């Protein structure tokens, strides 16, 4: 079974620029999550989708971050404009059974 796919793997941008990340979950997984992982810390949830509806976006900085999941499959996470403190690894995860989440390889974002 193919795992969670993410692209790009690495991205370097200047502050105030915009960036987008893409995620393709494991086939059949209805729930999709975006996490932010700052170096040396555990992942922190940004947003959770159930099919194409948002379940929890309470920790998403909505003034600059947005996410969508069209047709309940792929998802994109966008940052506009980026700040220096957004430098992190952005992880996508999906789940079928309750709570056991499977993660993708992540996108490492560096904001200069």
């Amino acid at each position, binding site marked *: 079974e193919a795992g969670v796919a993410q692209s790009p793997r690495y991205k370097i941008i200047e502050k105030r620029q915009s960036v987008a990340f893409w995620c393709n979950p494991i086939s059949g997984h209805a729930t999709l*999550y975006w996490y932010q992982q700052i170096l*040396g810390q*555990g992942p922190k949830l940004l947003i*959770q989708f159930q099919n194409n509806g948002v379940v929890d976006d309470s920790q998403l900085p909505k003034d600059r971050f947005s996410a969508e999941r069209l047709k309940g499959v792929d998802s994109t996470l966008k940052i506009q404009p980026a700040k220096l403190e957004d430098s992190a690894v952005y*992880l996508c995860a999906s789940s079928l059974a309750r*709570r056991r*989440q499977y*993660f993708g390889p*992540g996108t490492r974002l560096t904001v200069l």
Partner: protein
Amino acid sequence: GESVGLHLPTLSVQEGDNSIINCAYSNSASDYFIWYKQESGKGPQFIIDIRSNMDKRQGQRVTVLLNKTVKHLSLQIAATQPGDSAVYFCAENRDYGGSQGNLIFGKGTKLSVKP
């Protein structure tokens, strides 16, 4: 605030020895716990999970122990191998309403295996 934490940030063991990674949680309402392994440059990889109605669960070379009395979780790795070198995270979850709930991660323990 309530969070999942780890007692030790780093752990160094000899190849072939058993490893024990500890985790403390503070939310007594948490009813599901999960361990992940994260190698450098990769996403977290599922190792094993346990529900609060159990106190022990075994997998291949790994055992998770849950002590709800003291809100403590541990991951035991038998016959540790160099390939086990990674950062290990525990995460907690509590079911509420109709949602699956969200995983709350600790900061991680870095396991180094000496040959």
